[in-house]
């Protein structure tokens, strides 16, 4: 199953912020965590994570620092800020609202099979 690009883009902010809320992390590990949490259903193009991280940095939601990793290489770690946590809460409320609405709709459509296929014009007919 391939998830729509717009959906991936829209959900990237809360997902990254939530992962960073668990603990400080770096690009590769964040991507691993996304795969893990989504059960492999969310496939991000690896490189695209970085512009997202930098955008969150510019907005003040995350802070970056360079550290020397176990491998001896320099690695850029990201940490969520207080502003980022507030943003995560905000996003959670928004996504819950969307989720709740959708849930209601799925339930409704499950009760009346075929409603989604109905022609909208039936109302006026």
């Amino acid at each position: 199953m391939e998830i729509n690009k717009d959906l991936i883009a829209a959900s990237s902010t809360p997902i990254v912020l939530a992962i960073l809320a668990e603990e400080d992390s770096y690009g590769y590990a964040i991507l691993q965590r996304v795969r893990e949490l989504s059960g492999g259903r969310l496939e991000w193009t690896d490189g695209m994570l970085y512009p997202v991280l930098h955008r969150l940095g510019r907005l003040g939601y995350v802070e970056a620092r360079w550290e020397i990793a176990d491998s001896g290489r320099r690695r850029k770690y990201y940490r969520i800020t207080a502003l980022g946590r507030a943003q995560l809460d905000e996003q959670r409320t928004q996504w819950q609202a969307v989720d709740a609405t959708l849930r209601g709709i799925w339930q409704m459509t499950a009760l009346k099979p075929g409603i989604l296929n109905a022609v909208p014009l039936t109302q006026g007919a």
Partner: protein
Amino acid sequence: MPNTEHSDVLEERIGQWREYLRRRQAIHAVDIAELEDHLREQVASLIDAGLDADEAFLVAVKRIGALDALSREFAHEYSERLWKQLVLTPDAEEPRATARTDALVAFGLAITAAILVKLPALFGLDMDAEAAFYARNVSLFVFPLLAGYFVWKRHLGTSVVRWLALAFVVAGVIVNVYPFAAGGSTEGLAALHLPIALWLVVGIAYAGERWREVGGRMDFIRFSGELFIYYVLIALGGGVLVAFMAMIFQAIGMDIEPFFESWLLPCGAVGAVVIASWLVEAKQSVIENMAPVLTRLFTPLFAAVLVTFLGTMLLTGRAIDIDRDVLIAFDLLLVIVLGLLLYSVSARDPQSPPGFFDVLQIVLVVSALLADVVALWAIAARISEFGFTPNRVAALGENVILLVNLAWSAVLYVRFMRGHGSFGSLEKWQTDYVPVYAVWAAIVVIVFPPLFAFA
């Protein structure tokens, strides 16, 4: 497990990938480092999973995604990066320290130049009363410092430094020991030509060991053009600053003109040379050069003006009206045309085939040559009537030098257009010719005054 041979290949591949990324303007070195860390981690985990190094590298690169798209995302995120910023982009953190020392040295030298220009006043040489002294020496207040900056930057050896210093000392002695007649034209000529001669000395310091190469001298030509543009820009900014200052101080009833004339203008004018040079040095890899852009803009316009001029002269049958300044005017015309030629040569890719712009260039050069020949013809006919004053000889000499330079350039250019020669030979001719101007300027400074009895 990867053996050493494998990891060598892998390192090479990662190196290539890094180089490829580096060419993208929107992705900076720190971002590349971050992406490289990602790539290596991914490769390592894929190798652990049983892939060999080659496969792991390919998969990892593919997962990072199309670099065009990535670069677009970065550009979107950092739109300012497409405007190559001079101040904001030290490439990695390592050169940051050198950039700062560089700035400090440049500002130090600028301040030294400002102090130097005020120093003679301590010994009673007032700027108004002794204007001739300042006019003769103006290049000596700043060019030695500029040369010093490049000596420091290029780590030049003591033997070169000795020659450079000798040139400045000789120049200083000559213009100050010669018994110039007050207000005479040889003094004016010396004041005008000394900077030209000494600019070559600065150029030798600038190019350092590369002075003997075409590339080194071409870099100096580029540097000179950019420096000129920067200097004009700084001067414009300075003008705004001064106008503003005058305005607000006027509001409290104070006149800044004396301060402006004796401090701000001379100190600013010499200091700005060093600062502009430092800016050109610092930004050469960061911002596109301006001189070639202006050249592109003005070459067609100048060509059109000259062709129209020649056409009008032919149609109306008007002769060039010989008066005192006509030679100077045609010298300046040739200088401008040479500048236009020089800066389009300096920015042209020698590999690219001849195009429309090259035709325009030839039209420009040939029409300038024709106009100049007509003027020279008119002057030669009446030169005995005018007599050989120092000014006229100097102007005539310059005209001939410029004419030779442009004429042979035109020949080489046409050869290149017709596929008989390479563009490189034109470049070589232009850069080889640079010292001729300095030598002529030196002759005007050194030989003319005694020749014309310091008149």
